[in-house]
Each structure stands twice: as structure tokens, then as C-alpha cells.
């Protein structure tokens, strides 16, 4: 088991190095950093000074490792557009995105699993059929359209909920939160539904199909033949076996939620990292793009790693098979 963990961690580090190379190449080769950082009035002396300062006169591998070293310490350079350190900008905006993603992820997982189990157990009921039909629509609807439709309904027509921004936030010094004020909570409702809906339908459909598969298994028949209560059969025997394969996809969906936050944040002008990234693309603000890429990669790779390790915890067969010696 230890060997497996070490191999997985090594793989993760390799992926991060590759992504780092991509990010660094963007940083180094897309446009001229000197051009981007100095205005129109510049002297050759300025250019030379900056070139040395940025280390652009050094060989490529040296620059690459310097970049990685800086990235590891959270140093991603200065935003071309705002002229401030990228790390500061991201730190300001991260709480907004993380709160949104956490609430959406929670909604998607809890409601998704509940509905998936329900539609699997009551597979022929009309409520299940309605849920399944609606979910097909949910999978086909682009996220931004869901957001716009929600704004149209709840902000324009009913005038119940705000259509943009985070509402009032409380500054805790190292973190700003919208979870402590009523206007902050209200502002969170539409964006989190928008962001979570797609993942929710995905999780629901996956849980349903996995659970139907599990319910066909012999050990479920045997559990019934032993006279166990329907509730025990469904939740103790079927649900647990259903959730094993669901863990991977759910883990990846959590990563996807952070990425899809870009879209939701744009629709709702949510002041998070995703909106920052979109603006960076529009204005070709390479340091911000590179930093975002690195950050999101760390999250994705981390989530993947955790998901893989969770497998061991949940499935006793893997503990024995891959672990080898006892």
C-alpha cells in the first residue's frame, strides 16, 4: 500500500511539473514580458535592468526552476493589468470562489445522492420519471443559461434575490465571508444553485445507474433471501456498494465545480478568482493566467490523489490486493 501511495504522489508531482512547464512557457513566450511591463516611454537601460531583474538573461532550465520555486512560495509575479502582485490579488478573491464552490458542492453531492438513491429505489414511480426527464434537460442546459434564467425569474420578475455581487461581507482579517450576513447569504443562493445544478444532475444520474446495477447483484438477492428489512438492504447493502465507484466521479466533479465557477462568477459578477481569470484572458494578463492554471492544477491533482486514497479506506478488497504483504 505504501508503495502505491508513493507511486501516486510521484505521478501527481510529475503532472504538476508538466503543468508548471506549460504555465512557465506561457509566461515566458506569450508576448514579451518586458513589453507588457514597461510602458511606451522606456530606455534601453530600463529594459536591461528589468531583463536582469526578471532573470530573463539566464538559461531556460534555470528560469523554469526559479519560476517553480517562486510558484511554490506563492510568488507568481506582478499582474500586467493591475500592477499588483498576483498572489495578493488571488488571496483577496479566493474566499469568494471557495465559499461559492463549497456551498455548490455540498448541494450537488447531498441532493444528487439523495435523488439518485430515490430514483433507483422507486425506479418505476412517476416522481422518478419526472425527475429523470428534468435531469436530462439539466445536463443539456449550458450553465450560463441556467444562471440567466434564474436571474430572469428571481431577480427581474419576482424581485426576490440579488442578481450580482456577494452582498455584504464580513472581513475576518485573513478571510472575507458572506456567510454571516443575510444579504451575503441571499446573494449566495442563485449562484450556488447555478453552479451546483449541472454537477447535481450528473451525480444523481451516476448514483442511479450504479445503484440499479448494484441492486441486480447476487448479494442483494441473498440479503433479501435472508429476510433483511428493505431499508437495511437498500441503505446498508446497496448504498455502500454504490458509493465506491461514485467517489471518483464526485471527487472530479468537485474540481470541475471550481473550474466552472468561472462561468457562474461571470454571470453573477461574483468577485472571485474565476472572474479574475476571465478578465485576465480578455486582457492577456499572462501572470494571472499562469497563476490560476497552477493553483487549479494543484487543487485538481490534490483532489485526484485524495480520491484514490479514499478508495483504500472504503474498499477492503483494494487494501489487500494492491497492498501486497500484510
Amino acid at each position, binding site marked *: 500500500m505504501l508503495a502505491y501511495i508513493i507511486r501516486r504522489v510521484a505521478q501527481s508531482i510529475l503532472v504538476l511539473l508538466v503543468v508548471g512547464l506549460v504555465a512557465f512557457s506561457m509566461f515566458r513566450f506569450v508576448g514579451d514580458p518586458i513589453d507588457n511591463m514597461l510602458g511606451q516611454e522606456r530606455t534601453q537601460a530600463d529594459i536591461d535592468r528589468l531583463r536582469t531583474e526578471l532573470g530573463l538573461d539566464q538559461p531556460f532550465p534555470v528560469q523554469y526552476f526559479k519560476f517553480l520555486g517562486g510558484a511554490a512560495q506563492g510568488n507568481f509575479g506582478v499582474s500586467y493589468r493591475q500592477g499588483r502582485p498576483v498572489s495578493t490579488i488571488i488571496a483577496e478573491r479566493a474566499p469568494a470562489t471557495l465559499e461559492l464552490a463549497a456551498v455548490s458542492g455540498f448541494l450537488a453531492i447531498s441532493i444528487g445522492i439523495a435523488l439518485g438513491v430515490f430514483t433507483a429505489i422507486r425506479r418505476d414511480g412517476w416522481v422518478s420519471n419526472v425527475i429523470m426527464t428534468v435531469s436530462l434537460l439539466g445536463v443539456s442546459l449550458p450553465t450560463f443559461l441556467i444562471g440567466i434564467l434564474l436571474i430572469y425569474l428571481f431577480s427581474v420578475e419576482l424581485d426576490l434575490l440579488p442578481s450580482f455581487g456577494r452582498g455584504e461581507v464580513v472581513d475576518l482579517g485573513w478571510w472575507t465571508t458572506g456567510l454571516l450576513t443575510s444579504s451575503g447569504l441571499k446573494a449566495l443562493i442563485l449562484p450556488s444553485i447555478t453552479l451546483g445544478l449541472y454537477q447535481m444532475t450528473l451525480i444523481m444520474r451516476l448514483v442511479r445507474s450504479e445503484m440499479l446495477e448494484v441492486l441486480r447483484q447476487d448479494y442483494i438477492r441473498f440479503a433479501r*433471501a435472508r429476510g433483511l428489512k428493505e431499508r437495511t438492504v437498500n441503505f446498508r447493502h446497496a448504498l455502500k456498494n454504490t458509493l465506491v465507484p461514485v467517489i471518483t466521479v464526485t471527487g472530479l466533479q468537485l474540481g470541475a465545480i471550481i473550474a466552472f465557477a468561472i462561468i457562474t462568477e461571470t454571470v453573477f459578477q461574483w468577485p472571485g478568482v474565476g472572474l479574475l481569470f476571465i478578465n485576465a484572458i480578455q486582457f492577456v494578463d499572462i501572470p494571472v493566467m499562469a497563476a490560476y492554471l497552477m493553483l487549479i492544477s494543484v487543487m485538481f491533482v490534490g483532489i485526484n490523489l485524495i480520491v484514490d486514497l479514499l478508495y483504500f479506506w472504503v474498499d477492503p478488497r483494494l487494501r489487500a490486493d494492491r497492498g501486497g504483504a500484510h
Partner: protein
Amino acid sequence: MSDPVLSVRDLVVEIPTRNAVLRPVDHVSYDIEPGEILGVVGESGAGKSMTGNAVIGLLDRPAAIAGGEIRLKGQRIDNLPYEDMRRLRGKEIGMVFQDPLTSLNPLLQIGDQLTETMLAHLEITETEARTRAIAALDEVGIPAAASRIDSYPHEFSGGMRQRVVIALALCAEPSLIIADEPTTALDVSVQAQIIALLKRLCRERRTAVMLVTHDMGVIAEAADRVAVMYAGRLAELGPVRDVVQSPRHPYTEGLMGSTPLASRGQHRLRQIPGSMPRLGSLPDGCAFHPRCPKAQDRCRANPTPSLDADQGRAACWFPVEQLEDAQ
């Protein structure tokens, strides 16, 4: 004689399909006495497993009981509500499935699967259930049961897992066990052990057993009486020795002719020509007549009378009279 443990009368199972209603089980009747092992034998699709599933109330939809009665110790059980039937399963009727590799939940320790079954049916505490679980594992021959109780199914071999399955089926002391092909998925070397185990435990407890199999060898080894099924109907029913030594139904005779058995002076193995008809395209008259060497006009025109549990042995218009006569 006391009441039979299980009494099946004119049982009919039907599956409605778009074009027709199929009858995988058609007017089947038999009894099983306490401590008795009834072998149910037939080709796949003959309706033997379906009969077992009907008895324990686990027919997969759209299959459903369409006629007849099932009585357990005199009480009718084929029309019980789901929840009442659920209480009987495991408690009064235990079941052993074919494949021990897939019968056990891979994510639960075998001890948990045993105790949950006992707690569902018996008024005992968890500690008592655990003690009993260890005893049950010990009884089915799991070595070092006390330390293996917290193991997961994948840590056992196939034969050991089938022992665990048997322990599970017997742990609430049911009066009837339905064993559906309990040895088919096992290595030949383990098959005899499992059969001997099943036989010993049921004799000790006077548990009635319905042993469903396609293997005449297993029947000859374990069963007291045997029911031969063909295309959903009972072809022949009688004591094992009689049926094996002097079959009355031409199908049984064919079946015996194609099985190597030590108890019969074996010449050469023969095979029955053709194959069992599918349920959707049963011939008129006796379902066996297209393959029967003795078929006559009567067989083609008139269905054979169904066998009653307590009279007659073969559902055939022209039963084989005696072994000597037939040759």
C-alpha cells in the same frame, strides 16, 4: 406422519410478455417432510430455480405466481403481504445461491452479515449474536472461526465462502433450506464436501431441503426423493433409488442414460436428441414428445395429466414399465 414442512400444490408461475404469457412453472406439486432432502433436477430453463424463487417469494418481476398454493408447515404463504413474507425469509426459509463469490457483500465483514441476519429474526443482543455467529462459522467448518469472523469475503476461498453462505442460511434455524445449484460454481474437489456438510447439518436439525441442481450425481449423493422437471412441468417424482434405477418417464430415462452413475451398471452414455423447447414455442400435447422415442398420436394431441404429490410417479401416457421390460 407429521405435516410436511413444505407443500406445493398446482403451482403456476407466469411471465406476461408482449405476445404471449409464458409459464416457466406449470402445475407443479410436491411435499417435503422434515429432515428430508428433495432433489429438483432438470435442464436449465426447466423451471427448477423459478420454483425455488416462488417458494421464498423472490420472483423477479414480471414473473409472478398465477395459481396454486404454497404451504409452509400447513400455513399458506404464497399470498402473504411483502412484510410478512420478509419475516419468514431467513427465519423459516433459508436460501443458498449458486455462486459464493457473488452472494456475499464484498464491503461487509462476514461477522456483520451473520449478526445482522440473526438480529433481524431473533430476540437477542448483539453480543449474543456475535457469540452465535462464531459458533455458526465453527459448525460449518471454518477453522479458527473466532479470528476469521472479522474477515471480508474476499479473504476466503470459494469453498470456504460457500460454507459461510450456508452458515448465513442456517443461522436463524429455518425449517426449510432452498439450495439453488449450491455446488455448480465450485471446484469438483470441494463439491462433495459442501454437499456432505449441507446433508449433515440438515439431518441434525431436521431441516427440510429443496436441492435444485442439474447434476444427477449430486442428487444421487444427497437427495431422498427427486423431482424431475421438464419445460416447467413435473415429469417424474419419486424416491431417488427408484427413479435412478428404474425411471418411468422417457425423459428421466434419457437423463439417466446420459449421466455416468456408479450405482447403475453403466454401459455407454447416450444423449437425448434435440433440445428442450423454449417456453414461447411449446409443442401441443406432451412437451417432450418431439424428442421422445416412444411418442404416439396421443402424446402429440393431449397434454399429460399433471402429477399429484402423493400419487403416480411419471407424467407420461406410456410410462416405462420396468427396466427389464424396456430392454
